């Protein structure tokens, strides 16, 4: 797969560059600009240097939100990745059943984010929801809008409900690319189910699993709409994740400077972690091509 060197390929990339420049670089520059300035209303801006960054790095509110965000993403990955692999391994291989499973599993992925929030709102409410009502009938006290633990449990259940299928579909695609001969060879060798998984299926899924982990990390780190609709960040600040906090600051209180500084640091953290993932992915790709 040798690619030829051709600088004229740049012409094919130019439309993308122009579009992305308009929708990304210009707004980004605005953010950078605001993050170093202060405004007293109107269009008067004053240079404040690194003031906002200094303030934010000492802000307990930001660190708390950051901690919650990390914990949330960590739990999400811990549940969704193994569960997704399990579901992918359990999926029917072909025929009608496979099609039905694919369509049903994709369904949550195509529901608008705020409708996902709404679904879990009406599902979990102790007065009118199936889940909430059933739990309280069983004698378990459950109220996601008042109890912080219940709120977390519901937000996590909602995210697992919403996105596990993505991990499962990715793994399923990886599994489908394994030639049948591999399984036959394993069967002749009397390999156990575990060693089939460990030495055939898992290595073949590595590439797609990387994509799954990367996507799930990025998206769970940016989560906004679903918890906003479900809990509004509450009770108290229990489910106020970074994006919710940021929107509160930028559009709610209109604190342009701090919000801009917040945005940049937020973006940089995602970028840094994703860059590590991406580098690992690329080198894994190269390893595969070599072997």
């Amino acid at each position, binding site marked *: *797969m040798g690619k*030829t060197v*051709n*600088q*004229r*390929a*740049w012409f*094919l*990339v130019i*439309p*993308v560059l122009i579009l*992305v420049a*308009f*929708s*990304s670089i210009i*707004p980004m520059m605005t*953010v950078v600009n605001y993050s170093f300035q202060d405004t007293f209303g109107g269009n008067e801006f004053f240079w404040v240097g690194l003031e906002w960054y200094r303030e934010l790095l000492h802000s307990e509110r930001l660190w708390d939100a950051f901690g919650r965000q990390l914990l949330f993403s960590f739990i999400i990955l811990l549940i969704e990745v193994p569960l997704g692999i*399990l579901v992918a*391994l*359990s*999926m029917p291989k072909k025929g009608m059943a496979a099609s039905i499973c*694919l*369509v049903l*599993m994709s*369904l949550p992925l*195509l*529901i608008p*984010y*705020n409708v996902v929030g*709404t*679904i879990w709102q*009406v*599902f979990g409410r102790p*007065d*009118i*929801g*199936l*889940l909430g*009502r059933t739990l309280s009938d069983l004698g378990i006290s459950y109220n996601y809008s008042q109890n912080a633990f219940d709120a977390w449990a519901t937000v996590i259940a909602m995210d697992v409900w919403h996105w596990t299928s*993505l991990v499962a*579909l990715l793994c399923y*695609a990886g599994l489908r690319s394994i030639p049948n001969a591999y399984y036959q060879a394993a*069967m*002749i060798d*009397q390999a156990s*189910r575990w060693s089939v998984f460990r030495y055939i299926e898992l290595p073949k899924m590595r590439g*797609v699993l990387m*994509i799954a982990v990367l996507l799930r990390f*990025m998206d769970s780190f940016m989560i*906004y709409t679903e918890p906003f609709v479900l809990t509004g960040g509450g009770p108290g600040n229990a489910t106020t994740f*970074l*994006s919710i906090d940021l929107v509160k600051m*930028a*559009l709610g209180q209109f604190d342009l400077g701090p919000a801009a500084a917040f*945005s*940049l640091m*937020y*973006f940089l953290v995602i970028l840094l972690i*994703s860059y590590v993932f*991406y580098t690992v992915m690329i080198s894994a790709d190269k390893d595969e091509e070599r072997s």
Partner: protein
Amino acid sequence: MSGLPKSGSSRKPKRRLATIVMTIYLLFLLIPIYWLVIMSFKSNSEILSMFTLFPTDFTLKNYQTILGDPSWYMGYVNSFIYVSLNTVISLSVALPAAYAFSRYRFFGDNHLFFWLLTNRMAPPAVFALPFFQLYSSVSLFDTHIAVALAHCLFNVPLAVWILEGFMRGVPREIDETAFIDGYGFTRFFTKIFIPMIAPGIGVTAFFCFMFSWVELLLSRTLTSVDAKPITAIMTRTVSASGLDWGVLAAAGVLTIIPGAIVIYFVRNHIAKGFAMGRV
């Protein structure tokens, strides 16, 4: 060979276990949706006063409220307009770029590719305010094109990524043969190459549609009346007298249907598409 039938029969309980896992998982996915659907057929008094697994007093009133009121159903029309616009724009700029990335090496190609991906990693919350100011200053605020362009932020990188994966699977010899046969680049691209990766384009369109359709933060920030999407309009079921649960549920159900229809058409390619064409 005597080992084969034995291990064949020992696979059976495993298949049964797999069926159980699948059944539980699908039930977990479907029960919350079921609750939303039946709620949309109930009257508000039934929702609030009785706890019923089926609507005892089956009503279509909630749907009539939505389909009979332009300020409701125009939300669906607005959403469709900007989602379609976004899909067309994303595909038309991503196709040539993906071709360049899949076929050629050029100055800064890897950095450019990663930089494109970083836009997929940018939290929409970061862009909400600057987008609002940018589109207001070029007087595009509250237009469909503004939302469509804003959604390009994450859809264009994704489209390039998926298409590049699919294009890699097409042997280079095809390009070379076509060029030797005297095809110009444009004619080759539109007449030969695009038909060859049609499934990939279908899958990419599906993803652009999906991510634009489900997004709320940017589309809500960039619109007020004329281009307001249905997902933002839904919030108005919150009124002084409390929530209008039935109408909210009906509006939710109506946002699920387009996705379900689109999924049905791409079901055979969907697994590969989710893997960004790289399997």
